[in-house]
């Protein structure tokens, strides 16, 4: 058996934090995705342009640069602006908040595309039928559009979740003690980097496998009313 030199608990704590960061970022990303998709489908050209800029910029900038920008750049930017107005403030962002905000922001852009695709996949006639039955816009969204979007969005959301989960490893560069950082600490202390990074890799792999199972189950459940899917 592999000797963990007493670092098993640290790794487990890191593992839990990774799951927590992942879930929190995904929740933020889903919220931003719904907002973004709505923005992309509005008649207003300005709002559509804003949403397009959001997805375009996020798609072209590496996650690492984005994380560094938010964690180190935003506080200094705020301080500089405050100084310009004659105030002296010190801003520090908590690394958990910075990490979740950045990852959520990035994958919100990808979820925007997922939800937009899902919305367009719902047949237009169904919405018209709902209006014809006298349903309001909100009720139509809640009863007709959203439940069906869920079905179309699931494969895409599952993919985004798995990429997002792996992206959380990058938060270790801003000193958040998630799984990657924990294994780094253990690797340096024990001088057995290979052992500990391999364990970390296997833990991420386990998360991926569990996610795939859950996704399959959710998809089967979402498609239970459909024929031959």
């Amino acid at each position: 058996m592999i000797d963990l030199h007493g670092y098993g608990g640290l790794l487990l704590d890191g593992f839990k934090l990774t799951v927590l960061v992942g879930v929190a970022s995904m929740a933020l990303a889903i919220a931003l995705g719904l907002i973004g998709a709505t923005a992309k489908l509005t008649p207003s050209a300005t709002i559509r342009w804003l949403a397009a800029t959001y997805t375009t910029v996020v798609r072209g900038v590496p996650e690492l640069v984005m994380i560094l920008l938010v964690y180190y750049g935003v506080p200094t930017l705020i301080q500089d602006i405050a100084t310009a107005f004659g105030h002296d403030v010190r801003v520090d962002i908590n690394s958990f908040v910075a990490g979740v905000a950045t990852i959520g922001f990035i994958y919100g852009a990808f979820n925007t595309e997922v939800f937009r695709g899902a919305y367009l996949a719902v047949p237009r006639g169904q919405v018209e039928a709902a209006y014809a039955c006298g349903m309001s816009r909100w009720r139509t969204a809640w009863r007709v559009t959203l439940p069906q979007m869920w079905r179309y969005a699931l494969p895409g959301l599952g993919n985004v979740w798995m990429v997002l989960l792996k992206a959380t490893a990058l938060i270790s560069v801003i000193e958040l003690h998630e799984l990657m950082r924990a294994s780094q600490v253990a690797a340096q202390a024990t001088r057995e980097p290979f052992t500990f990074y391999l364990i970390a890799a296997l833990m991420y792999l386990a998360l991926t496998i569990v996610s795939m199972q859950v996704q399959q189950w959710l998809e089967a459940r979402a498609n239970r009313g459909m024929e031959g899917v």
Partner: protein
Amino acid sequence: MDTILDTLPRLLDGAWLTIQITVLSVVIGLVLAVPLAVLRLSPWAVVRWPVHAFIFFFRGTPLLVQLFLIYYGSGQFNGALESVGLWTFFREAYFCGVLTLTLNTTAYTAEILRGALQTVPHGEVEAARACGMRGLLLYRRILFPKAFRIAWPAYTNEVIFLLQATSLVSIITLMDITGVAQAAASRTFAFYEMYLTAAAMYLVLVYAVLFVFKRIEYRLTGHLRPVGVAPEPTAPEPEPAAPQAAATQGASQDGRTP
């Protein structure tokens, strides 16, 4: 502004390193991915299984872990590596960076190609077989040309992702765009200026790659365009990547989603 101008020459050096690493990994990765995709579809489980395991590992774990596993992890075996004369390579961050990125993109590309190969209509393969083609000839004339066309949009995404993923090599001390920006930022305290400049440089590189790849896609699908209708694309559309994965099966689904 002055600090940005002062660092600009070094940032451009960094950009050159970023481009170098990207091109090396993409080219070697593609060369390795083609045979792996074929092996992945082999009827023999003995062949199929190890390839599957390789792809699954590299797609299922974060790139950062892979990078550390190779760069720092190799230190645990430096004695063994030295005895076979490989330690000089593994000591180099550049070598480890390119190796990791290559293996990573190989796994993703192989999976994209596998998906594409599987969506080639069976009738075309049967027709080719009926004409007496088999083995490499069948692959060269029928399967690969078709599969590459199907895989191209997903492959474009993969290359863009790899380009952005090269930013991770800055963590193992290489001075690519991110590395230079980080060093300059911590020296001058111009954090947001530096990182925004770096972000802008990546943005330019990504859309340059996208432009070239869209051009190639346009050429690849020439025979599918209605005659005299579609004009040359002027600017590349910032293609949404994720819905491809949601909407179509096969090729695009197996790429790195976003």
